[in-house]
């Protein structure tokens, strides 16, 4: 067996990395970050925890012609839904 490759934990990403991981243009992500649709993100800091949100918003905009604000609102609801599902599982 070959030597194992060492993986590093990534908490913060650059906007470019996050855009590449979401398969969107950097500009797409940057505009939404600057409009405040990604809580806590800025031009220089993008938490890797926001990637799932970016993918959801991309899909909603691409597939349902949602405006960025509507996609963000729906992402908020889905995130709350995720949180409630986890809490329910933990409480069972």
């Amino acid at each position, binding site marked *: *067996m*070959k*030597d*194992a*490759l*060492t*993986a*590093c*934990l*990534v908490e913060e*990403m650059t906007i*470019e*990395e996050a*855009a*590449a*991981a979401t*398969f969107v*243009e*950097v500009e797409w992500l940057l505009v939404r970050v600057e409009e405040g649709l990604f809580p806590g993100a800025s031009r220089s800091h993008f938490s*890797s*925890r926001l*990637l*799932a949100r970016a993918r*959801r918003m991309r899909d909603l905009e691409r*597939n*349902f012609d949602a405006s960025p604000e509507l996609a963000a609102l729906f992402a908020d609801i*889905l995130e709350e*839904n995720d*949180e409630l599902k*986890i*809490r329910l*599982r*933990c*409480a069972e």
Partner: protein
Amino acid sequence: MEFRNYYEILGVRKDASQDEIKKAFRKLARRYHPDVSREADAERRMKEINEAYTVLSDPEKRAAYDRIGQGYRQGQDFRPPPDWDAGFEFSGKGFDPREAAGFSDFFSQIFGRMGGQPRRADHHAKVLLDLEDAYRGAVRQIALRVPKMDASGHVLLENRTLNVKIPKGVHEGQIIRLAGQAGQGGDLLLEVHFRQHERFSVEGLDVHLALPVAPWEAALGAIVQVGMPDGDLKVRIPPGTRGGRPLRVHGKGIPGNPPGDLILKTEIVLPPADTPAAKAFYEKMAREFPFDPRGRAE
């Protein structure tokens, strides 16, 4: 390679308009989107639906698909004729070739060439790990399907297995980076998801566990041993603990800076009254304790 009938997947006629295709896709996306669907195979169906929509919603891809798909049925063995794409001019709009990693071999073979150039050399994939890996770190073999561009510009999917040292402290949704593993100097970014654990539930960095305790442990307090992914842990149960009360053990969740907490949900388990001695003991308690669980203790 199996032929994919994208019209059948979306449930539309071959002469469906773009508007009909979009409506059919949206209807199916509402039904199968993994965020909201209760269907057992929602994730697999959603991938199929996305793949079909990626092709049929793009006039270039749809025209090419219609040309090569004449006479084929869903699931039929399929080999694209040589040079089938001669004469097509592809703009490369619409999808990033790395998205093809989630699609079928059929898609990659036919449409791989039609994607644009990757915007960055990094690659991205999801991996499933166990909660134990988060506590102890681990070396795991990870199988990936990697889109690669061949000399003629087609995107082909290659199977690749990596032996990866996972650092401890990974959490759900965590990104881990394998420097230089994406080809052309790019990094491979893996997104971690945990398999469902039979004992533990995970909420961010916090880890939840049901903890059965005996009535006397709950009433009098006790120090009990709890089996954790990284070994046994001694936990103090405070006197007067009620069933269902969560006990928070700081810093014993997923390791990190700061680490998560371990949240124990106490479940008071009664010893069965299945022997004469046990029955006699319960009877003695009933006589000696003026206790009404539906009211106040006197």
